[in-house]
């Protein structure tokens, strides 16, 4: 049950981001990026202008995989350290709310702020795109936006775990950068290394399973399987996938990626304080 205390905490987090113009700045910046990429996405092939939806989504997927994870990680990374520094953590912990209510309240507020900025960022580019190529592709684009939101929420959840594990701001920043590098670059490099070492003799099932351990890869595959037959996907996500990998399954795995870090955050926070 979402209690009034949780709404109060969520409202405070959201209004912080709205008042500080965080949502507007990030949303506008993101919108500019998406518009530029949508327009110049085919420049390497000597073509400019708004192209097909598939090509644009492929280009935007690359942008989103780098931009949204770091955005979400920095959004929640210092959430507990901030309360500790301000001395307000003790007030929350002496209040008649559970650790879960405190964490979920904060998470909800930041999820709304993140969703607003992602929807604003991708929405503006989407509106322009759909205006140029027709509203028939609106559903496809909405799925892409939904997948991007899920990616953001996944990394926001991870940022809460960082926040609970480390109260020192320097450690939070270091781990945030490491996680971002790990999931956006290093993990896939590791998989490429594995393919080289095994000379490609990694079974499709095993390889697909390994991809599920990286939410960025899940996002790429999700766009691939949920949006359809665009062939311009780059990187590891363009390998052949077993037919049983369906959007619903990937959305389910994404939910685990959201719930698990948040659950561990609540558990660890409780353990750290109450045991």
């Amino acid at each position: 049950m979402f209690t009034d205390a949780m709404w109060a905490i969520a409202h405070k987090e959201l209004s912080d981001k709205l008042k500080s113009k965080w949502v507007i700045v990030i949303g506008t910046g993101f919108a500019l990026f998406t518009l530029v990429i949508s327009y110049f996405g085919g420049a390497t092939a000597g073509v400019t202008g708004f192209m097909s939806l598939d090509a644009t989504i492929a280009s935007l997927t690359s942008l989103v995989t780098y931009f949204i994870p770091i955005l979400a990680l920095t959004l929640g990374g210092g959430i507990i350290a901030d309360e500790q520094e301000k001395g307000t953590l003790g007030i929350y912990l002496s209040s008649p709310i559970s650790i879960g209510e405190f964490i979920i309240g904060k998470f909800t507020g930041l999820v709304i702020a993140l969703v607003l900025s992602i929807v604003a960022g991708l929405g503006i580019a989407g509106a322009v795109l759909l205006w140029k190529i027709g509203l028939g592709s609106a559903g496809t684009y909405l799925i892409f936006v939904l997948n991007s939101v899920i990616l953001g929420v996944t990394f926001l959840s991870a940022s809460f775990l960082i926040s609970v594990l480390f109260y020192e701001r320097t450690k939070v920043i270091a781990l945030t950068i490491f996680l971002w590098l790990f999931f956006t670059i290093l993990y896939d490099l590791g998989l490429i290394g594995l393919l080289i070492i095994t000379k490609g003799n990694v079974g499709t099932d095993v390889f697909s399973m390994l991809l599920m351990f990286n939410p960025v890869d899940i996002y790429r595959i999700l766009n691939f399987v949920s949006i359809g037959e665009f062939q311009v996907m780059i990187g590891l996500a363009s390998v052949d996938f077993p037919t049983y990998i369906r959007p619903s399954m990937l959305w389910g795995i994404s939910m685990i990626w959201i719930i698990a870090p948040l659950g561990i955050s609540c558990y660890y926070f409780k353990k750290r304080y109450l045991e």
Partner: protein
Amino acid sequence: MILKLENVSKSYEQIDALNTVSLEVKEGEVLGLVGPNGSGKSTMLKIMLGIIRPTSGKVLINGEELSGKKWIEFKKSVGYMPERVSFYDNLTGKETLQLFARVKGGELSNIKDVLGRLLPEDVLLRKVGGYSKGMRQRLNLAQALVNEPGFLVLDEPTSGLDPVGTKQFYDILEEVKERKKLTAILSSHILAEIEDKTDRVAVMKNGSLKAVGRLEELCEGMNMPLRLYITIKRKDECLEKVLMKEGAVELGYKNGYLLASIPRENKLELIAAIMEEKDRFTDISIREPSLEEVFFGVH
């Protein structure tokens, strides 16, 4: 509401922050908690508030051990004013109080009359980022009272307040206490300040409770000497000799007084001896040792 700690200990890895502490806070009393830094005061307060759990021992309310959801129930009646809170610079004082009122299940109207004296309306509508340290402390007290607590924990509450603010703070506390039959714990380093604000005092050192009781009881228990103040016009060796003959020690002159520490058991004999020399002074008074003296006596 009677809060009781029973053999409570708390260890962090290999450090014993609290060592088998037993303490009862009686209903309606103000308990002063004193001790040097690192003595375990904060750890004890946090255990009482359910912010941290003890490694061993029990916390009881009205004889019932607190665990699980009973903590949440207890916290509904708790007000906590932590030391050093800066709050959120981007929120106004009013928004801050509204936030904590909702988190604690209280309402801003609960403290309407007190709030007017703590923070005027125009200050309340300003962003906390522009508040002085004293204003933040007043806001801190207001948030601690916003759920109309029955049990109030104040950690170094007047730190950052000027003398006027300090007096006003204790006036408001007294008023709230009278009205609500409040039980409170007041932790402070300024021993003289809480001396006459508390019903009992608990003295801590190295994670252990060294002494608990009314100030007079503590002084008597430790047989601490009384302080004698004799108002004189000039240095008087004759009076000094009389005092020393009756066992007075630590004689000295300060601000027109001849000061001395006198043993409790000799009090009457000493007064009788001095009264024989009553032409040599204009006034005389005997006082209990200050909390500061008790505190250092215990240590």
